[in-house]
Every structure is written in structure tokens, then in C-alpha cells.
């Protein structure tokens, strides 16, 4: 039986550690690697030019690597549901392989394709390699619901088998056994598109910071490990002014697109740690970055409304303000707060910002200052941030806006103070807001407080050359902490005076993990929760069932102060029509990359 394989790249843009691709090659006579792209929708998809560029560079890199193996990448224009029937026929496809996509949208799309493939007599092989673990397994081990605290997540992961070891890269020998028929006009039909073809006008400046592709990813990995070895320190690094700038060893965009296998990263870290520390097993904190990613993938995999507030069982319903003008100022770096504006400028120009910078701008937009919905911020990040993907982006925004995961909301990042403490030199501001470069350190974070003489000397008058601050931070934070408290107290029915007690604790953290497993007794098992504990904090609404709302509405009429019990809004259509800008059903963009 002749096997003609097609490997479908979506994420996982690499030849190393790619079991699905290996499966395509296995006993096949012909193999074609495809990427499906619809230029028609490139403009309307919420994807900015930096992300497109990164993707196209990654595809070019794949194409180059495949050329060395006597093959090519086929970039097919169109939508999968239209493209595949055509390709199945044209190429006599008998096997389709791809990497598993755990996101709800991905699962739905793939289910449809698998069904279609069956109808065409095409066998499908799917392999899970975008995440270290299988999200469904974690959910199963947590009483069939995704862990909602990071500590709980770590406790579960601690009990799992280690992630599967990564596979080596595709070799010449493997490819030699399969052929790829390349036509003369391959470049025309199936070449990687340019940014212009997608409708972007590039101004010829190719000095961008993050170069896409597997080759670059692996080089960076080596540099990253070298640097860790040199520092000989695996503690979480304290943030310095330097950390704010793009690092030549940063890996997050490469993990997001799959140019770098997360397992390769994982095991390389492991080996380095063992070599340097001569220890038996590394602590979970070593893999912090990777595990946060896993956490959000797991939290989102069964929740199609994960990226919304409404209809999302884990999201607190907060009465965010709707203010497009304010949102635009934030998104475009015109808030009048240099720290915030510099961060948003770096984000727009380069596509990456440090995680503490993300906290700062996310807090400013939502619960800290502007009181605008996290969904709006999430969409801006989706457009601009190279390493944003559906699960991690939505999850992080919910976390940072204290909309989910039982976060305390008291700590607010001051748009002046936090910046100043992070980078007292002000160099970061000067780099991304050149207009302010002549301001002295004393005033560069709050130029509106500088005396006129200083402003004149710096050749930058606030209100003329640089915007005035769009809000009064003290007043906004005062208001907003009250709002958050109101929301949480209504949810948790807490009537006391403690700010901290307004946020209910979650049962899962206090409960012991599933009984039988004994905890590893080594000194590095600090992350696992101990089996002997009793819930200490009051947990008002003891609902632990997975997809129900964690807080039950109080419908008793005896509430001391009239609660909203008489008008519960969830899922009840009534009153004036909803605003049309943000649709409540899961928005299905026509193009996801």
C-alpha cells in the first residue's frame, strides 16, 4: 500500500522533536509538509506586522531546512476545510499528520478535519508536543477539573511521569526514503508569502529584534544555557534595568510558535542543572516559565469562553468601564505616564516586553487605574506580542486583573514608583520615548511635576510635546480598590472589614492531594503540598464542581443591604441590547496563526 503523507504545520514549526512529522515519514513513499495560510484575511485577523514577520521568517527557515533534505515547505493559500479536499485528491494523500492543539478552537477545527480525512480514506496521526504534559491527564488527576492555583498545578505535575524525551531532528536518511515532488513553479504556488503579499507596507527597515525560525531558536537556546552556566545561578533573577531590554537569549516567542520544542528546553535545563549542581533532581521552580505556560494551556483547554468575562465560569464578573478613547491612549503609549508609554512603545516596536512590564501595563489598564476590561488589553497583546497565544494571553490577563485564580487585589503597581524602582537610571524611558531623553532622573518618571524651567531645558513641555497624565493615580487607585472590594465582597458575602479576607480562598489549595501517593521525600520536594493540613481559612461558597460558577448568588431577601439578588444577569437576556463592539459568543477569527 503506497503511503503518501502530508504533515500539517500550524505551530510546531520545527524539524527537531517532531513525532508527528516522524510519523509522516514512517514508511511513506512521498511526504509533503504544508502550512495553510489565507492572505485574504491577513489584514482583518488581530495579528500585527511583527507577528506576521516572525511567522513568515519561521516558515522561510523551515523551507530552508527542508531544502537541505531535498524537500520543500508548501505554503498553501486558503482555509483548511477548502484546501484539504483539494490536496487529498491532487496528491493521493493516504496519511495526514499534525501536532495536537489543545485550545478549544483548535480542537474543533481539527475534529472537523479528521472527520473529513476519514471520508477521503486518509488516516490521521496526531502527536502532543506543544506542551510538556497532556492537559487532559492533569485535569483527570485533579478530580476532572483544571487546577486553578499554580501551587495545586505544581503539586499535580510533581506526581506525573516526566515529560516524554524529545526526539532528534529529522535526518537525511529518513528523508531519503521519502520523496517530495517539487514542481517548477513551486515558489509561485507554494512559496512563503512576503509581508507585502499579506497587505503590509514595510518601510524597508529590517532592523527587528526577534528573528523567527528554528535555527535562531536553537542558537538562542545554546546562548541561554551558556549564560545560565556562566551565572551558575538558577534562582529567579532579580529584575535589573537591563532585563527590560530584549534579550538575545529570550525564548518565549520561539516556544509559542513551536520553533523550539518545550521538551528540548526542559531537558537541556535539567541536564545543565545536574551537571552544575550535581543534585539528584531539580526543583520545579527551575522550569517556572514552562510550567506557567502549561498551567494556562490546561486551564483553557476545555473552556471555549476562557478569553471572555461573560459566560466564563472561572471569571469574576467585574463592571469594567467602556472607554475606547482611554483604551486607545493606553494601546498607543499616550497615557502621559512615561513608564507605561515606554513599555507600550517597546511592545509595538519589537513585540516583546519583560513580564514585570506586562504586569505594570496590565494593572494600569484594568484594576489599577483605567478600570477597562482585561479583554481589551488581551486583544492588544494578541496583536502585538510575539509570544501571546490564546490560552496564555487570556489566562495571564485574567490573573493580572484579578478576575480569576483567586488573586489578592491589594497590590497595585504604581505607574511612577514601580518604574522608578525598576530602572532608576531612566535609560529605558529615554530609549523608547526619545522626547523625554533630556529630563533629569528626578522627573523623568513624572515629567508633569517638573518645574517649567526643567521642562524648557529638556525641550519637552508637558501638555504640548508630551501628554499630560491621563488620570490622577492616587484618586484612581482609591476608587478602584473600592470597586474591587465591592465586587469581591458581593461574591464572597464577606461583610467584615479586612481587605485581604474579601477574596475567598479556594478549597483545592487547603485540601490534601489525592491520598495514596506518597510525596517524594527529598529536600527538593518543597513544592508539593503536604498531606496533613486542614482548611483554615473560611471558604464561604463551597462549590468545587468543575464548571459551575464558584460563587452562588445570594437570593435571600434578608441581605442587610440590597444586593443584586433580584437581578442576576448571567445568561438572562433582557433590557437594552448589548453593545455591538465585543460579541459575546466566542469570536472565531477567520485566521489564527
Amino acid at each position: 500500500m503506497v503511503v503518501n503523507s502530508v504533515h500539517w504545520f500550524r505551530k510546531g514549526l520545527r524539524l527537531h522533536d517532531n513525532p508527528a512529522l516522524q510519523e509522516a515519514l514512517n514508511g511513506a513513499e512521498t511526504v509533503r509538509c504544508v502550512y495553510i495560510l489565507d492572505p485574504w484575511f491577513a489584514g482583518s485577523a488581530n495579528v500585527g506586522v511583527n507577528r506576521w514577520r516572525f511567522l513568515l521568517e519561521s516558515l522561510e527557515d523551515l523551507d530552508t531546512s527542508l531544502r537541505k533534505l531535498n524537500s520543500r515547505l508548501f505554503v498553501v493559500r486558503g482555509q483548511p476545510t477548502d484546501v484539504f479536499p483539494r490536496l487529498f485528491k491532487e496528491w493521493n494523500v493516504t496519511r495526514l499528520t499534525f501536532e495536537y492543539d489543545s485550545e478549544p478552537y483548535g480542537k474543533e477545527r481539527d475534529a472537523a478535519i479528521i472527520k473529513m480525512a476519514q471520508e477521503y480514506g486518509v488516516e490521521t496521526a496526531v502527536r502532543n508536543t506543544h506542551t510538556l504534559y497532556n492537559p487532559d491527564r492533569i485535569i483527570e488527576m485533579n478530580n476532572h477539573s483544571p487546577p486553578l492555583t499554580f501551587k495545586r498545578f505544581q503539586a499535580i505535575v510533581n506526581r506525573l511521569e516526566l515529560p516524554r524525551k524529545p526526539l532528534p531532528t529529522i535526518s537525511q536518511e529518513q528523508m531519503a526514503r521519502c520523496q517530495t515532488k517539487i514542481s517548477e513553479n513551486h515558489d509561485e504556488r507554494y512559496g512563503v508569502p512576503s509581508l507585502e503579499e499579506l497587505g503590509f507596507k514595510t518601510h524597508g527597515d529590517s532592523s527587528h529584534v526577534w528573528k523567527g525560525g528554528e535555527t535562531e531558536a536553537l542558537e538562542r537556546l545554546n546562548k541561554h544555557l551558556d549564560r545560565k552556566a556562566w551565572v551558575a545561578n538558577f534562582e529567579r533573577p532579580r529584575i535589573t534595568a537591563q532585563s527590560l531590554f530584549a534579550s538575545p537569549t529570550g525564548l518565549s516567542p520561539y516556544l509559542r510558535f513551536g520553533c523550539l520544542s518545550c521538551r528540548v528546553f526542559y531537558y537541556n535545563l535539567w541536564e545543565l542543572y545536574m551537571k552544575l549542581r550535581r543534585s539528584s533532581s531539580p526543583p520545579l521552580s527551575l522550569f517556572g516559565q514552562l510550567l506557567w505556560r502549561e498551567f494556562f494551556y490546561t486551564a483553557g483547554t476545555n473552556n471555549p469562553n476562557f478569553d471572555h468575562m461573560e459566560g466564563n465560569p472561572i471569571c469574576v464578573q467585574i463592571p469594567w468601564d467602556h472607554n475606547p478613547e482611554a483604551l486607545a491612549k493606553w494601546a498607543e503609549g499616550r497615557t502621559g505616564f512615561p513608564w507605561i508609554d515606554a513599555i507600550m512603545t517597546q511592545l509595538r516596536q519589537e513585540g516583546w516586553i519583560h513580564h514585570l512590564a506586562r504586569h505594570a501595563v496590565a494593572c494600569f489598564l484594568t484594576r489599577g487605574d483605567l478600570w477597562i476590561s482585561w479583554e481589551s488589553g488581551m486583544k492588544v497583546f494578541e496583536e502585538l506580542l510575539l509570544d501571546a497565544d490564546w490560552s496564555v494571553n487570556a489566562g495571564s490577563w485574567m490573573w493580572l486583573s484579578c478576575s480569576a485564580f483567586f488573586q489578592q487585589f491589594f497590590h497595585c503597581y504604581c505607574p511612577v514608583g514601580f518604574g522608578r524602582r525598576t530602572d532608576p537610571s531612566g535609560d529605558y524611558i529615554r530609549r523608547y520615548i526619545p522626547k523625554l531623553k533630556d529630563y533629569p532622573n528626578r522627573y523623568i518618571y513624572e515629567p508633569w511635576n517638573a518645574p517649567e524651567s526643567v521642562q524648557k531645558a529638556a525641550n519637552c513641555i508637558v501638555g504640548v510635546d508630551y501628554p499630560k497624565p491621563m488620570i490622577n493615580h492616587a484618586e484612581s487607585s482609591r476608587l478602584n480598590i473600592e470597586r474591587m472590594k465591592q465586587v469581591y465582597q458581593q461574591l464572597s458575602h464577606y461583610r467584615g472589614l479586612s481587605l485581604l479576607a474579601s477574596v475567598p480562598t479556594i478549597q483545592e489549595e487547603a485540601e490534601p492531594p489525592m491520598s495514596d501517593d506518597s510525596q517524594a521525600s527529598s529536600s527538593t520536594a518543597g513544592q508539593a503540598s503536604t498531606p496533613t493540613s486542614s482548611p483554615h481559612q473560611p471558604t464561604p461558597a463551597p462549590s468545587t464542581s468543575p464548571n459551575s460558577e464558584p460563587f452562588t448568588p445570594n437570593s435571600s431577601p434578608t441581605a442587610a443591604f440590597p444586593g443584586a439578588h433580584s437581578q442576576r444577569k448571567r445568561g438572562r437576556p433582557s433590557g437594552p441590547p448589548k453593545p455591538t463592539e465585543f460579541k459575546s459568543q466566542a469570536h472565531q477569527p477567520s485566521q489564527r496563526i
Partner: protein
Amino acid sequence: MKRRLSREREDSPSSCEGPTDSCKRVRQPTEDSGDLPPDWARLPQEILLHIFQFLPLLDRAFASQVCRGWNEAFHMPELWRCFEFELNQPASSYLKATHPDLIKQIIKRHSNHLQYVSFKVDSSTESAEAACDILSQLVNCSLKTLGLISTARPSFMELPKSHFISALTVVFVNSKSLSSLKIDDTPVDDPSLKVLVANNSDTLKLLKMSSCPHVSPAGILCVADQCHGLRELALNYHLLSDELLLALSSEKHVHLEHLRIDVVSENPGQQFHTIKKSSWDAMVRHSPKFNLVMYFFLYEDEFGPFFRDEIPVTHLYFGRSVSKEVLGRVGMNCPRLVELVVCANGLRPLDEELIRIAERCQHLSAIGLGECEVSCSAFVEFVKMCGRRLSQLSIMEEVLIPDHKYSLDEIHWEVSKHLGRVWFPDMMPTW
């Protein structure tokens, strides 16, 4: 739809209260109840009322369309004692609003039933105006509770002051038995407070008016002088005075339960007045159990007048950066402290300050630290000293600095041991 109820409407001379009680229980003893399907129309009024109280408003409204009897139950006064008007514009809020027709109906049929009312408005001026319109029409109302709540930006402040005041005054004059009033972030002023006092001084128990810039210390003093039943008060620091505290501690005054003060900086370098220790002492003598909640939103160098003397604060929140020195003073001067929440501090370890707080604040049961630094050893020491009285311990992970004694991985064991429960620091995603 109005269905005729053939079996009902028999006269019953029993204790019914007029036209609303037409759907009375009528049992026909000759019928065998086992054969008949349940007749919902016979459900006794009081049971119907009880059930309706559990239904959200919309469901109740649907139920009221079923038959005349249920429609009448829907309009029983008991169901209209509490109401929350939600006023939102699609352009400024994602939330739905109370339907305008419903609002009209309430004003027409139920305004004299309303007793516990709140208005939730979004950031648009229209919503605040709508709230005022409704307020102005509540002429037949004798409210016990009124709350004006802005869920986002304070839109009441954007109304013309006179418009707001006249609407509010309608309620003050007509209610005469207001017990709880929440008017934070509104343009209420001294004269309107006088009206409030003139009509409700015997009944007022709770007054929340943080961030009401048009009120002066004299205005609030008038309230304290006349409303001797006042138990809960929330206001901004600029309204606080020695006289106010003394008025609240006068013999005629009931025990104060809870005083909330917001200290907010309008301009950098603002000077704040001081309150004498003797005034605080008088408060404590008069109301030994009262809670003093203070929220600070100041620049670091504006704390000069604060915490120089002993102050009976119980719940303290620093919403911006607060200096090490001030935290040291807090340790020295706040013996009644129950909860301390620090948003941020400079990057110098707070080891000594925390230990002192553990020593001297024997009632401390909740602490939250944001952008601060504490060495792991000092932190363990702190927890050891406080022991199990710490029911809330919310420490951001970055706060804890590992030292020769403890690493980050080890610290949560130690702390959990001393707390008697599993504890982890608060985490933030790093991606």
C-alpha cells in the same frame, strides 16, 4: 393574559388585606384531591410570596404573566421593599440596565413600598442623571436605606451640583427614617447634610461619604452632633477634626462601631493637619471596641504628620509606596492593629520593622505585602512570633529574599509549620 378563575373569588371574611388577596385558598372538601391535577391557581398567597422572593426579578416577571393571581402576588408590597436600580449605557458599560418600563412601573405602583434602595451607575453622566430623576420621583417613599454606587468612574460628580442636591433632598425630606446612607463620590454639600440631619437625626446609623469634596469639616460635625445613633462613618481625612472625634465620643452618642478614613493626596507635597492623641483617646474610651480603618494614598514624603503618636487604628492600607521609617512608626504606635496591607515600599528590607510589628501589635491577624523586601529569616521570625493568630498572610513571592538560612523552596515549609496550615506566597505569572 387574564384567565378567569372560576372556582376562586369566593368571599372570605377572614383576615385578608384588601384587593391584592383575591387568590385565596379555597378548599372544596367534597373533591377527592388525589384525582385532580395540582391546581397552581390555588397556591396560597403567602407561599407564593415566599417562593417569589427566591426568584430573580426577570423570572418573577415571567411568572406574573401566568394568571391574575400570580400577577397580583408579583405586586405585593413585600416583594418591593428592596430594589437595586442598575443604570448603564451601552456605550460606557458592558452591563445590562434595569429596563426603563420596569422603572416606570416601580415608580407608579411601588414607590411607597420601597424601603431599601440602591442605585448602581456606570461612568456615563446619563446614568447618573437617570438616577437623580428616579430619586426626585420618590416622593411617597420612606426609605430606610439609600445607596448611590458608582461602579466605574464617579459619574455623580459630573452632574450639575444643584440637580443632584435637589434630587437627594427629596429623599432626605420624605424619608424621615433613613438609617443607612451611602453617598461616596457625590457632590453632596453642607446644606444638604443639614437637611439630612433635620429629618433623620434619630434614625441615622450608617453614613458613608468618602470623597465628597463639597463637604467641609463643619458640615460633618453637624451630623455628628445631631445624629447620636451614628455607628458607622466613612469620610476623607480632610473632614476629620478633633471636634468631630469628641462629638462622636460625647455621652449622648452611641458606641461607634466603625470609622473609615481615606487619606488621599491631591497634590504632591500636600500638608495634612494632625489629630491630637487626646481626641483618639476619647474615642477609645467611649467606644472601646470600635474599628478604625485607614486607607492611605500618599507620596512617601507626605507622611510627616502621621503615626507620631499612638493611634487606635485597626485596619491599615498603604495604597502607594510607604517608607521603611513610617512602617517603623506604625510598629511603635499602633497597638490595636489587626490588619496591615502594604502595596509597596522602597527596596530596602523591612526585617526590623516587621519584627517590631509582631512584638507590639498583638492583635495583628492579617498582613499583606506587595512590592517589598524581607529576608527569609526575618520573615520566619515574624511568623513565629505571630503564630496562629495570622489568619491572612498574603505575601508576593518576590518579597522574600533568600538568605543563608532559607531558600525560597524551603521557606514555605517553615512558615506552614508555624501557621499550622499549608501556606505559599502569592505568585504572578512569568512568561
